[in-house]
């Protein structure tokens, strides 16, 4: 909460601080966001947040990244784009080796703000994103709460995740720790890789439920929850298995409204993109050079800003729909 309040204070104060210094034309400044799978709808809100910040500040914003999930390709793109001297990079660190890339471009004089997934050991100037361990912990708490509402005091839980994403592994650790410490009668009985693909989620979830017919709850750790909705509908298990998914896209919201998914988690990802670009802008343009101790290494920006987590269910899903459910 403290980090959240600090971020809000900085976000509110910085534009005012900057206003006096806007005489210079900065329309040529390029802020480049590089993500590991550019085609996924997860980035839409983050990209929109960064674009809005760029429009307000009068700078250029570019969004790029490999089409399929590829950490290495993401890092290569960052290093290739660095040669063109952008003002700053905004990126998510979904692989531990991202720290080396961040340090290399920082040495070239290009600062990096991380969002959504952090590289705390790197020289990034700030991280705007959730604590993934805490997200996993909250998944555990929410799932147990929903299963207890069904009258269950013990139960089996299945997980669908993308195994090559470090942040998702951290979420699973938080989830398992919550269960071990607070609800040991609920256990994770199966974990499957969905490769970030809804169709794979549907097929593997069905196989998982066939092999584990006593599963009471399913958690999709990444944004492929509508594939889980498909699996539940094809097996005719809507309402019999409790489903918790991640992220907010229309197909997931429609799955909540048709009853195949009960809830989905949402991080305020728009704010991740908005604050990432805002922080980078003020850092690059020297607006924070007067921070006491900045010249001897004191952080000019909050090291970590958590944009917060909330759950969406059938009672409020319609408010988040951008289109319709057909």
């Amino acid at each position, binding site marked *: 909460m403290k980090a959240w309040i600090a971020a809000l204070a900085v976000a509110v104060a910085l534009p005012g601080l900057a206003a006096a210094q806007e005489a210079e034309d900065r329309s040529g400044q390029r802020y480049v966001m590089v993500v590991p*799978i*550019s*085609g*996924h*709808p997860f*980035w*839409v809100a983050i*990209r929109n947040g960064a674009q809005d910040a760029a429009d307000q500040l009068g700078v250029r914003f570019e969004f790029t990244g490999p*089409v*399929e999930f590829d950490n290495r390709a993401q890092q290569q793109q960052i290093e290739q784009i660095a040669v063109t001297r952008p003002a700053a990079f905004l990126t998510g660190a979904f692989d531990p080796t991202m720290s080396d890339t961040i340090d290399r471009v920082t040495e070239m004089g290009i600062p990096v703000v991380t969002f959504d997934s952090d590289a705390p050991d790197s020289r990034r100037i700030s991280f705007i994103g959730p604590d993934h361990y805490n997200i996993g912990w909250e998944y555990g708490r929410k799932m147990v709460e929903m299963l207890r509402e069904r009258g269950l005091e013990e139960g089996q839980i299945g997980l669908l995740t993308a*195994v090559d994403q470090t942040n998702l592994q951290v979420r699973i650790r938080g989830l398992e720790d919550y269960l071990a410490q607070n609800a040991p009668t609920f256990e994770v009985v*199966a*974990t*499957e*890789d969905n*490769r*970030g*693909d*809804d*169709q794979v989620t*549907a*097929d*593997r979830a*069905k*196989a*998982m439920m*066939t*092999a*584990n*017919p006593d599963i009471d709850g399913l958690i999709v750790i990444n944004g492929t929850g*509508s*594939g889980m*909705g*498909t699996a539940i509908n*094809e*097996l005719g298990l809507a309402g019999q298995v409790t489903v918790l998914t991640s992220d907010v*896209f*229309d*197909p997931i*919201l*429609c799955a909540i409204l048709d009853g195949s998914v009960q809830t989905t988690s949402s991080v305020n990802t728009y704010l991740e993109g908005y604050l990432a670009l805002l922080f980078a802008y003020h850092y690059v343009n020297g607006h924070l050079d007067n921070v006491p101790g900045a010249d001897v290494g004191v952080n000019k920006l909050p090291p970590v800003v958590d944009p917060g987590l909330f759950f969406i269910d059938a009672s409020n899903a319609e408010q988040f729909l*951008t*289109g*319709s*459910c*057909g």
Partner: protein
Amino acid sequence: MTDSSALARPPAGLRWKALIRQREVAILLLILIVGAVASVLSPFFLTWANLSNVLIACSVEMIVAAGLAIVLISGGIDLSVGSIMGVCAIALAIVLDAGAPLWAALSVCLLAGLAFGVANGTLIAYAGLNPLVLTLATMTIGRSVVFILSQGYSFASIPQGFKSAFNATPLFGLPNLVWVSLGVTAALGVLLQRNVWFRRFYFLGGSEVAAIRAGIDTRRLKFMAYVIAALLATLAAIVTTARLGSAFPNTGSGLELRVITAAVIGGCSIYGGKGTILGAALGVLLLNLINNVLVILSLSVYWQGVAAGLILILAILTDIANRRGVRR
């Protein structure tokens, strides 16, 4: 006195050997072995619910594999089928999202797929571009088109009637999308074996020079191979969108490599002239069966890649053993 039937047919032992050396039979045997082992290890494998799950999981890839098999047999390759699927799925969903009737959305979807097929076919058959490089380029262009059209958004406004048409289960508890997939695979399989025009793809892939000398319009045939592959990718996009009730910017992403792998395992040669639709379909079935078995057996996700890889190596080894047997 000589028994004429004994002269006409080889001894039973040799007939069996010849049968087993057929790629499709070898893959079918491997499928049966994997299935038998899985049914011993798990009581859940040999249930109708699980087997129908496998068929549903195969359906989209089988449709795409049928088109790719024709391209491979003709001596070409098409890396753009996954992107074509993505473009068609997003085009279909966007038109529906705009409130247009289903026929209009399907027409746009079909035209989008046809445009890619015609572009691929024209540039490869008539301009002489290398199919690997050209379809790599159209794959990239297609995925970019997906992002341009969708702006990264996914779409869920798919009419219930359209979803129901493919997901209804009229026979044996299998949804219509499985029957569509099996029907397309069977029809193209028969055509490729029996129809004179379709048989020409084998001549083309076996030796283009010989095909030209035989009076075959090889350019037109090559062109048609890519058009057929694109139209089947379009059908796969329609089936996927109906099944998931949504279209995503990553629809079909990475599908081309999985399907090419399946087709090659099923006996299609990347040098052309060899393979069948049945073999490609069995290759898809084997790959999906392996995925299913590994999940059913609750094998750790970290070990699944090792297990799947070993079974694929086994599939390749059986092919090599068969070929050595044929040479002897």
